């Protein structure tokens, strides 16, 4: 991979730091009136999701990371690995470990397309679509006539996620949910 120097650091650039692939979040130039310039850089570690803050002297460089984001459809889980398939017509499948799946495990639904981040061709993280439609598998019975008032109750969805829903929602209904906030949006 190419090396990138501090003046090429911009949001989204993927670089290697301490052996982990990272995405640059922010790069601020710090320079006294006359003197050495520094880059104060925020990077997201793509393995852990943690944000690191590091300082580099202007002109220092980091090795680029072979990282890409691909759309893949979720297929199945064999008890150990989760399998996804490329949507480019190649039918190529990628196994994903529990660690890489992270919180997305509770938003998994077959045939839905997820964004898989690959590093050196291995899946390191999985992001769900912003909105997903899932069936309610368990919730307290709905209350008739209570459609306008604010009350809510927990509901378990087919993927395992638990979200707060309005009181009128019943088991078996399909809901639209925002995966970023984990909030109910509407009936699907």
């Amino acid at each position, binding site marked *: 991979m190419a090396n990138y120097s501090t003046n090429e650091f911009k949001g989204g650039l993927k670089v290697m730091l301490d052996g982990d692939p990272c995405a640059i979040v922010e790069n*601020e*130039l710090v*320079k006294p009136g*006359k*003197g*050495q310039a520094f880059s104060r850089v925020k990077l997201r570690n793509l393995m852990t999701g943690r944000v690191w803050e*590091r*300082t580099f002297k202007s002109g220092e460089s980091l090795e680029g990371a072979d990282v890409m984001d691909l759309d893949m459809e979720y297929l199945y889980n064999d008890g150990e690995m989760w399998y996804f398939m490329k949507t480019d017509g190649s039918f190529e499948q990628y196994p994903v470990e529990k660690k890489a799946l992270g919180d997305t495990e509770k938003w998994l639904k077959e045939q839905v397309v997820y964004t898989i981040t690959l590093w050196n061709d291995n899946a390191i993280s999985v992001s769900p679509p912003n909105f997903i439609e899932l069936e309610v598998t368990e919730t307290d019975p709905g209350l008739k006539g209570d459609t306008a008032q604010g009350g809510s109750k927990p509901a378990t969805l087919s993927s395992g996620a638990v979200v707060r829903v309005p009181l009128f929602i019943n088991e078996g209904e399909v809901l639209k949910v925002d995966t970023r906030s984990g909030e109910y949006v509407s009936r699907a």
Partner: protein
Amino acid sequence: MAVDWRPTATIETLRERARLLGEVRAFFAERGVLEVETPVLGRGGSTDVHLASLSAEATTPAGRERLWLQTSPEFAMKRLLAAGAGPIFQLARCFRDGEVGRRHNLEFTMLEWYRPGFTLDALIEESAELVRCVLGRELGDEAGPLRRRRYRDLFRETLDIDPFTAPLGELRRMAEEQGGLAMGEAPRDDCLDLLLSFAIEPQLGRGGIDVVVDYPASQAALARRHRDPEDGEWVASRFELYLEGLELANGYDELTDATEQAARFAEDNAARRAAGLPAVDVDARLVAALEHGMPEGSGVALGIDRLIQLALGKSSVAEVMAFATPRC
């Protein structure tokens, strides 16, 4: 994706900017300081190790040659001083390669002015007046009193260390701690620069206009040097003005000695070579002008985009420029 053609400043901001530049011109007209314009392209460039110059290939009567885009209008303005121009100011477009960020833009406008016969102290007073004039009466009053802060005292107060006498190993260790990077081989000035920009600068210009004076002699650039009355350490006769954590201006008691000037150019280029940086053509005409004789006096360069940013309550220089570098 749609092409982003729109300005980075609102039209309303650009109107305000034009009004403030009018205030600057009125400020100097009242004081009998002449507005001048000097070339952006020159045969000599800035040799400063920490500035990266841009250059352009041009065809001139001398043939095909490389011309440097100025990092400040300093050299040409000093030649005007040597030619007897008297007090002069300029709103000059300047270029510094690689400098783009919230506080920086590849090309920017420098307000630079020279005051033959002025002491550094007199120019510090005038710089603060100019700053208050651009901020306007209300913000100008709010800015608070003008405070002189010695470089050395700032390090003692903030970091409990004497920047002139502390062992290099200790400076490196402190810089590593503040910056979170390895400073194993770093020279003394790089450590001091890091400590100043990370630990001290953000607190400067809060509740007052802070003017930092008596920099280490190694950071004199084109300023004279004098001895610190405390213990005879050499210091640079230089100041920097800060407001709201932003460095706004950099002033010198100007070096007028041609031999010393030529020596500093040579030192800079030697340091550039040692750091693996390209050498920059030296401005032989400036050295010749100093040989002829430049009146003693003080000069200052002020980043007018940053001052306008503060005056208009914006958070980046891009917001007060029609098209900042990312959208040029």
